[in-house]
């Protein structure tokens, strides 16, 4: 209760600010957090899906998203937004996050957001009970739990200033640089801080001194508070009121900087935009005096602040209000760290036994495991355990596409190469190299176009018209000899399997309506085996709960063709071994099978 952050708090970091994020992760590692404090990064213009960061000496990946909406949907547990957008966009980013909801705290770093926008944003956040830290701030920290971006500086300084573990002071400042300084002073003269916030230097900031002090009053880890104010504004008077009315009972030490301002006219702007006195009440001197009169501990000068802190701390300690702190064990960040060149997220050979997506090979290999090749594919290709109906389907596909006789271009190539005396792998590869848009590629194409048509709610007639406009024959439609009357039994089998075992098959249903139209034009314009496989793969993924975007990515990255490649390799190898077994001689194509039409080259 009353704590700003815990050891489980996670943030969405808006803007891929690598240095600041690395600082957070170094902090996490040092204090032995289990999970990184940054769950996601929003990088609207990046094409990447993740960014690598060090986690101690190792590396981890933090996912990148294009928008806050996407990031929040993927990482709903992250309830802090670290808004590192520029002053031009910081308002929009904050408002968007407030409208998405689910954020408890939003920190805004930009300086100089238009005042009217800042006020509107702060008021809206207050209405929604969201704590805004900033704008124009370096952030906040709950030592030993969660640290925002650059606050506290380097890891060495953090440890020197005891910001790696909980102390007993609640610290609130305007200035970010002095926040660090105060943390250091508190570490030297007392036992460090329990929670600290730099509220920001702009004139209109979200959470003000009193908001933070009232929260700290309720936080049992905070035993006393330090407030570092500035010339300008009247926020300190709210604190005085709270002390006088008994809302705040814990001791407060306070100082307002800018006592020099009284010597100069308003033309000299000291420090932050918020630091400008309108009238005597807003001067640092007047505020210091008023706070002292209210019973707040106010030193004679800033230079005497350390002594005041030590005095209050010693007093609380002697009364037993503050106990001894046990220094926690910490991890040490290695001095030299090297980024890894390769990343592997599917298998791992570092342990006793190599694993497929976390499963030891022995647990999926032998028949008694009940696992087949479909399971291995689901682990290594998709990093998921697919249900049996899906792994069976994958195996069915692989078996179905294993071979289609010696005459198709890939098999022919493999045979010719084998007869040239080349090895199995060389011959296989020449066969595989023919796989593409014309050979085997209909699986990809069918999935892509039928899905597009279905997603866009095209009627079959509209779809045909669209494909005609594109100048592309519909992939997956048409067979050399098969027709409705003379069906392709492979297709019949696949469809029967889907009907019996797929939880749903909406794309196949759509494809059948298209087939009804094409076959009405010409008998053999049936849904062929490539088309059926591509379409059913989409149905499989849909039924497994993948989003349309994820399925589109599978299609884009050539996953569908991969099933064809694996399956057909079985056939190609068969043809190559066949040639070897038959010891067939070098193949030369008969000349009478070639149309020679060679003209003498013209001189230019």
């Amino acid at each position, binding site marked *: 209760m009353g704590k700003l952050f815990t050891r489980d708090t996670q943030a969405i970091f808006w803007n891929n600010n690598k*240095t*600041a994020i690395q600082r957070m992760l170094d902090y996490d590692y040092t204090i032995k957090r289990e999970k990184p404090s940054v769950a996601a990064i929003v990088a609207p213009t990046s094409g990447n899906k993740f960014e690598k960061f060090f986690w101690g000496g190792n590396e981890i990946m933090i996912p990148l998203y294009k928008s806050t909406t996407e990031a929040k949907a993927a990482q709903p547990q992250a309830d802090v937004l670290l808004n590192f957008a520029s*002053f*031009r966009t910081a308002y929009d980013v904050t408002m968007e996050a407030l409208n998405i909801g689910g954020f408890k705290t939003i920190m805004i770093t930009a300086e*100089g*957001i*238009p*005042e*009217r*926008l800042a*006020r*509107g944003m702060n*008021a809206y956040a207050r*209405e929604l009970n969201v704590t805004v830290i900033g704008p124009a701030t*370096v952030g906040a920290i709950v030592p030993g739990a969660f640290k925002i971006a*650059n*606050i*506290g*500086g*380097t890891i060495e*300084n953090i440890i*020197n*200033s005891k910001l790696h573990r909980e102390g007993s002071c609640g610290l609130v*400042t*305007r*200035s*970010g*640089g*002095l926040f*660090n*300084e105060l943390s*250091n*002073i508190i570490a030297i003269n007392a036992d460090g801080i329990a929670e600290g916030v730099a509220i920001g*230097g*702009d004139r*209109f900031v979200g959470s003000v001194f009193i908001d933070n002090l009232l929260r700290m009053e309720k936080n049992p880890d905070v035993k006393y508070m330090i407030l*570092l104010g*500035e*010339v300008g504004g*009247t926020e300190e008077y709210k604190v005085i009121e709270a002390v006088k009315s008994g809302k705040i009972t814990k001791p407060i030490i306070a100082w307002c*900087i*800018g*006592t*020099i301002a009284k*010597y*100069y006219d308003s*033309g*000299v*702007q*000291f*420090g*932050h*935009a918020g*630091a*400008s006195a309108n009238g005597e009440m807003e001067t*640092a001197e007047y505020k210091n005096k008023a706070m002292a009169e209210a019973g707040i501990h106010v030193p004679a*000068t*800033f*230079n005497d602040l*350390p002594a005041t802190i030590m005095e209050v701390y010693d007093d609380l300690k002697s009364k037993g209000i503050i106990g001894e702190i046990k220094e926690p064990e910490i991890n040490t960040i290695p001095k030299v760290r090297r980024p890894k060149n390769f990343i592997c997220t599917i298998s791992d050979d570092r342990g006793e036994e190599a694993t497929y997506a976390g499963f030891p090979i022995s647990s999926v290999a032998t028949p008694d495991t009940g696992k087949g090749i479909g399971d291995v594919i689901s682990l290594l290709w998709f990093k998921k355990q697919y249900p049996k109906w899906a792994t069976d389907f994958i195996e069915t596909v692989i078996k179905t596409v294993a071979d289609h006789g010696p005459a198709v271009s890939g098999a022919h190539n493999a045979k010719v190469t084998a007869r040239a005396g080349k090895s199995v792998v060389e011959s296989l590869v020449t066969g595989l190299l023919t796989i593409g848009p014309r050979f085997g590629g209909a699986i990809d194409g069918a999935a892509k176009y039928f899905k597009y048509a279905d997603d866009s709610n095209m009627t079959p007639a509209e779809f045909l018209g669209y494909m005609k406009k594109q100048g592309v024959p519909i992939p997956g439609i048409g067979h050399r000899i098969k027709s409705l009357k003379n069906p392709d039994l492979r297709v019949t089998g696949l469809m029967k399997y889907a009907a019996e075992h797929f939880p749903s098959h909406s794309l196949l249903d759509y494809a059948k309506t298209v087939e009804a139209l094409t076959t009405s034009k010409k008998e053999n314009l049936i849904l062929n085996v490539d088309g059926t496989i591509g379409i059913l793969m989409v149905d499989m993924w849909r039924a497994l709960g993948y989003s349309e975007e994820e399925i589109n990515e599978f299609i884009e990255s050539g996953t569908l063709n991969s099933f064809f490649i694996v399956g057909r390799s079985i056939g190609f190898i068969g043809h190559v071994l066949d040639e070897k077994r038959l010891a067939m001689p070098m193949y030369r194509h008969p000349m009478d099978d070639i149309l020679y039409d060679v003209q003498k080259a013209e001189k230019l």
Partner: protein
Amino acid sequence: MAQKAIREYDAKSILAKHWNKYFPDFSYAYETVLVTLGAELLEAAKAKPWLKEKSLVVKPDMLFGKRGKNNLVLFKDQKPGDVTLEKAAAWIDEKTKEEQSVYFSFDGDTPTGEPKIDRLTHFIVEPFTPHDQSEEYYISATVVGDEDVLYLSAEGGMEVEEGWDEKVTELAFSITATEEEIVQKVKENIPADVKPEDKENFAKFAIGFFKAYRELNFAYLEINPFVMQGTKIELLDMVAKLDDTAGFMMVEEWGDIEYPTAFGMEAKSPEVEAIEEADAKTGASLKLTLLKPEARIWTMVAGGGASVVYADTIADFAGIEDLANYGEYSGGPTTGETKFYAETLLDLMTREKDPQGRDKILIIGGAIANFTDVAKTFTGIIQAFEEYADKMKDVGIKIYVRRGGPNYEKGLKDIKEAADRLGLSIEVYGPETHVTDIVRMALEK
């Protein structure tokens, strides 16, 4: 600073530009020109015939008020309302010829306090508008605390300023106030003394005014007085400040706006201007104010908060008589930017010796940086030392350094070595020393 004063002429121009949006039921002639010389006014009259046809009023437009009491409003030659174009041009030339004394406070009609002395450079020229005192009204709006406050009065001019508490209606609105709420509250609170026949129009005008104030990102907007003759409006005198942080989204709305230096403010030195120029070009922050260039304590402090603390502490220990400058660099300036900043300071500091023959003191201070690389910024300072070492020794400068943050050990070591090599007097401290304690050390010696 976010809130910046603009000229009366610009304030009127902004309202005129958006007049039909905010005041569709009213007319405003927008007959106003801004000139710096008499000849310019005569030239302007070629395009704006009203300058020749109407009798004129001329006032300086330089961000100060009480122009009438300072005798700086031209509205009569022999009798009120007889100022011709030629007379106006001649008056402008006469007033710009030599420096003028302007008082900012008056007790009745008697000036109090010291006047500011400066040259008049900008004048606003408008038609003389004959009207009845009862047609004058007052309106203004600004931010107070977290709220916008609209001030309305049935009396304009001096009277409202002198009888503020009795004569002004104050209406406070939160930032989230809806248009309906504003309309209702204004309609219900029209000052009782507004003439009955003007009441409806007054409300309409006030609603439009407040809307313009909010939507056009004014930080302060005052018309004192405006004249309402049915639906015809004259803006006799205006004061305005803009929230300049909104500038990037108000490019179209504000047009080409200038933030002039107030009358009587010392002209910025070329050094300060150079720093401002450098500041505008970088994402980091470079600030410099010269307080008393002949004084002996100079500060080169990193960070907005820390720089204030150092200034406070110097004032506490030595008083402000010895403090030459205020400034700060922060936000991770490059080595080159820091070098330029340091050179500018060292150049100013080494121009004269201390009249009493004492050593000068240079405080290179700063808190523990969050992300600024101390070694990198100190490299810039060291490069400036190398340029100015001879002059520094000549004048006699004791340097005190205190800093923490990323790479501070290297930064402190480098600056100490460089100063020793160059034969400069230096003491160097890190985060174990209290941030402002070097001020005490420097001044106790």
